[in-house]
């Protein structure tokens, strides 16, 4: 584990140099352990694919060198509290309509991948993905596990607005756009599941480490309920 400072109010812990399910799971485990023994003055614990950031308020942490105090807390936690045994996150099955009107890029992507659109759908919905990181926009989960034969580069020109609930693939990832943000991934389906709602007690449906499967439905209407 490599410790660097990100300004004078954040420690960045790097735990690997590749995007890998095992590494992101270790990052998620460290984040969970840090949360269970939260240090006063820490504001945010942000796990990503291969690195974890701890943002803090130097006044809240206190001491002559708050950066050192936070770093020592992370070091002590990583040595003492984590079994590092792979444990599964929660599992979600998200209904997705892959119908043409919900999937503006499905046919084009299928052509590029030289497979039939229905095979692409079958393949995409046959895999259990893992949330490698949350980011990009509130509630956006980068899902790892997209097989090599479904990987395509991002669109040359990103869309300025992607409809909420759109299911996309781009590079190594698949994922669901929670809100109508710009987006560069290819849209191959859509769900009515609400991925982010600031009014909910737990605003995000998913969190880092969770497992996700997609369940094809005939209509968008049928995706309104989590099975």
């Amino acid at each position, binding site marked *: 584990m490599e410790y*660097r*400072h*990100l*300004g*004078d*109010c*954040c420690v*960045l812990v*790097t735990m690997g*140099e*590749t*995007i890998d399910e095992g590494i992101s799971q270790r990052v998620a485990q460290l*984040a969970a352990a840090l949360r269970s023994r939260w240090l006063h003055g820490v*504001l*945010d*614990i*942000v*796990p*990503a*694919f*291969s*690195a*974890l*950031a701890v*943002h803090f308020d*130097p*006044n809240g942490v206190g001491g002559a*060198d*708050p*950066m050192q105090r936070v770093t020592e807390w992370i070091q002590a936690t990583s040595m003492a509290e984590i079994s590092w045994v792979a444990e599964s996150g929660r599992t979600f099955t998200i209904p997705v309509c892959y119908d043409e009107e919900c999937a503006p890029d499905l046919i084009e992507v299928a052509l590029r991948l030289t497979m039939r659109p229905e095979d692409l759908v079958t393949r995409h919905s046959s895999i259990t993905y893992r949330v490698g*990181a*949350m*980011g*990009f*926009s*509130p*509630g*956006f989960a*980068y899902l790892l596990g997209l097989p090599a034969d479904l990987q395509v580069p991002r669109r040359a020109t990103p869309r300025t607005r992607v409809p909420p609930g759109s299911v996309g693939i781009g590079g190594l990832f698949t994922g669901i756009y929670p*809100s109508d*943000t710009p987006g560069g991934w290819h849209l191959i389906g859509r769900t009515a599941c609400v991925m*982010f709602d*600031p*009014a909910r007690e737990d*605003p*995000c449906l998913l*969190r*880092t480490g969770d497992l996700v499967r997609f369940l094809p439905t005939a209509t968008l209407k049928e995706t309104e309920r989590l099975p």
Partner: protein
Amino acid sequence: MIEVIRPGILTTVQDLGRPGWRSSGVPVGGALDAMALRIANAIVGNDDAAAGLECTVRGPVLRFLAPAHVALAGAPVEGVEMLRELNLPAGAELSLENIQRAGRVYLAVAGGIDVPMVLGSRSTHLAGGFGGFEGRALRTGDQLAVGRSGRVAEPRAKWSVSASMVPDVLSDLQVLRVLAGPQYEWFGEAAQQGLWNEEFVVMPMSDRMGLRLSGEPVRCAMQREMISTPVALGSLQVPPDGQPIILLADCQTLGGYPQIATIISADIPSLARLRPRQRIRFEQVSLVEAQYHRRVIDTAFAALRAGLAEKMSHHGDP
């Protein structure tokens, strides 16, 4: 109630942001010049966490439907006294349209702007469409509720806060102090020297997410795949075109570009005060120096708070 007669270009409700939600992909947000908002709040006797208005380039015209105690901090506004308590009678109109040098100014009102808390903050998150007033910038006809305040003030405050607390006029060549960033080594000697020696110009199309700079391109020597990694307020990201972007309060929580440096926290409020076309230069400092400068600012603000509390406690003395 405060009624919006004219909204200005970008007027939003902001407080000190919503830390605690970055792991859900929610930006920390909040006032870009948090020091200016904290000072305005202190003048009218509010907590640090009270929400005020962030007014950008051209501010709003407001009508106060009930008597109000307000204060302004940030870029000077023509025809309005800054950094002191203004006691407005019911029906008073306040124009913040002529913000000098197209800067940002913060308005605090005793009791705070009362909008619902969303994820622990009243800040407007524009891209996400939540927080603040209906998740958006203010429009004509909006009516903002004001929180309760036990404020009793003199008809005309005899004191004001020193402008040195919120230096508006930055030098023509503003120096921003930075720490080396997590990917500093990726850039190689030439780009690193360029960063310390070259000047950059602030681009006009900057927003609440990032401050775009223009200058001699900073080229990353090491062409390696960048894994999206956490970023911080003040991260200096370098996209492939070599034109750096300084991340501001509404930036995303992860970034896909190498981070060559990070602005020290003591200099973050200055970012909100930079004008388009202003020239800047970076100066590397050590972590110890960065922590020292932060402590100086925090101490100065604590002294200001204590001084104001003292003034209030003597209010009404013969």
